[in-house]
């Protein structure tokens, strides 16, 4: 029999997270700081609206682009939060999670085989690089630095640009580092983007979860809206990960091509989720704020705990992750995480799961109750002390 598999797919490395997941799942009594999703349940009024839509028998497809009412609510939301105006009929596409939008956005923009380059700052979410490869692009990794709080600087961007550069993926607020880009940071890179005529895919799925100033979208900067695909969704802000609902806003011609791929590959996003999402956008602001306040308390708790332990960590102002440095122990991230799991039964994700430059760091999620965090951090403290006493002896 022939080998039927596609080389391009076979060559893609499986997610570093997957590997760790397999180890953890064999350990029965382990506790985890490893999730990338909220610990809250979806607010009841949103769930109720989903249930109601099922009761009413709204179990049909929606239009390919998604419910008109939902697209309108998204435009209202974008105007309210970012001051950006989108046309609900031409500039919005409802997708199956932000993930789908990343995938089809890249596919709509890349000409395969021409080695068009997609600039991907790392550490960042695991799917940008494989999606770029699958779209036929050449991913170019920009290694972000802790000394810049893992923000992307104009110099770093400039240095990575070639005459093949086409797209910049902008993953802020960032998973796994918790880094944000403030207005001034965005202005600096926007200049470079305009100068080199790049297009931006801005993944703003964590936009509602910032703890310093309110999130600023790069699309709100002068000249940027027409060259930005803004991706957001309901998973993080409204604790709706399992509903699989995201969206993309952008230039009409890009959205039109994306809608074509979406139409043939997916048809439409889940109808129940779309009805629930309308309710989320209409009446969900208080829920977001309540969760944001809780995350912020936990964030402060963790940073304080690391400080007491003497564990180096920059202060992250976004998402629900902290990214402490473990270089002092002379182990790789994976060695540290594996040993920590074996000895203290706590799962954390090695920074390298999000790119090679995550080496020496761990992603610790605070999508857990304070009670759970306390137990896990107690064990981390014990583990760190044990390691230090060994190196001293």
């Amino acid at each position, binding site marked *: 029999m022939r080998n039927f598999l596609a080389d391009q797919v076979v060559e893609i490395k499986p997610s570093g*997270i997957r590997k760790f997941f397999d180890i953890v799942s064999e350990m029965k009594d382990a506790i985890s700081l490893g*999730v990338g999703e909220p610990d809250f349940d979806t607010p009841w009024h949103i769930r109720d609206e989903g249930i109601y839509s099922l009761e009413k028998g709204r179990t049909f497809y929606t239009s390919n682009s998604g419910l008109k009412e939902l697209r309108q609510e998204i435009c209202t939301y974008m105007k309210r939060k970012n001051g950006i105006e989108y046309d609900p009929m031409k500039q919005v596409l409802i997708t199956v999670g932000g993930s789908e939008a990343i995938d089809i956005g890249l596919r709509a923009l890349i000409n395969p085989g021409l080695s068009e380059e997609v600039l991907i700052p790392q550490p960042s979410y695991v799917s940008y690089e494989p999606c770029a490869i699958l779209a036929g692009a050449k991913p170019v990794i920009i290694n972000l630095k802790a000394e810049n709080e893992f923000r992307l600087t104009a110099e770093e961007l400039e240095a990575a640009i070639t005459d093949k550069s086409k797209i910049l993926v902008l993953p802020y607020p960032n998973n796994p580092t918790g880094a944000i880009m403030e207005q001034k940071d965005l202005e600096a890179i926007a200049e470079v983007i305009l100068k080199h005529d790049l297009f931006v895919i801005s993944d703003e799925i964590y936009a509602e979860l910032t703890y310093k100033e309110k999130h600023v979208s790069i699309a709100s900067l002068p000249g940027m809206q027409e060259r930005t695909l803004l991706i957001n969704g309901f998973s993080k802000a409204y604790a709706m990960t399992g509903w699989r609902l995201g969206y993309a806003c952008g230039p009409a011609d890009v959205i039109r091509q994306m809608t074509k791929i979406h139409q043939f590959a997916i048809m439409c996003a889940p109808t129940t989720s779309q009805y629930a999402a309308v309710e989320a956008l209409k009446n969900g602001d208080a829920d977001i704020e309540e969760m944001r306040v809780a995350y912020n308390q936990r964030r*402060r708790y963790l940073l304080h705990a690391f400080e007491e332990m003497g564990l180096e960590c920059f202060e992250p102002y976004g998402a629900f992750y902290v990214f402490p440095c473990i270089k002092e122990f002379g182990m790789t991230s994976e060695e540290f995480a594996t040993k920590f799991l074996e000895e203290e039964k706590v799962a954390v994700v090695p920074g390298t799961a999000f790119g090679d430059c995550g080496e020496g760091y761990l992603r610790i999620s605070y999508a857990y109750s304070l009670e759970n965090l306390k137990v896990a951090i107690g064990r981390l403290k014990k583990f760190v002390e044990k390691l230090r006493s060994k190196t001293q002896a």
Partner: protein
Amino acid sequence: MREELLAIIEKNSRIDLKELAVILGVEEIDVVNELQKLEEEGVICGYHTLINWEKTSLDKVTALIEVRVTPQRGQGFDHMAERIYKYPEVRSVYLISGGFDLMVILEGKTLREVSSFVSDKLAPLEQVLSTATHFILKKYKDHGTIFAQKSEDEREMITP
């Protein structure tokens, strides 16, 4: 910080002061001072414990009593409310809009004890026009806390 502090201790009044300061991002002394001020101003009126008595061997009966009263000249409902809330077995008294005036929440050891309170003490009061007593059969949720089994974390251990 005031409202955030109150929101936290409303759910957990036993939280350690040091921890409270950490999660609020302030100094411990500020928390201590603020709490003292809140107590003095009567914003914080007490630190209670939420108990599911159904799980204990003690029997308790709770009743909600709707009371219609004639307001008194110059005193509105306050005087009547006071006469009622002074009974120690009365847990709460609220002035209510709508079909009746005062909502009285009463706790007793037995049904008989509660009903005799209503018939011997509450109903005979001169300004009380009528009462309607509802006994609580089961408490599902109290003070924002669901009494049913705690739910487990069903998320995958590791997700991107």
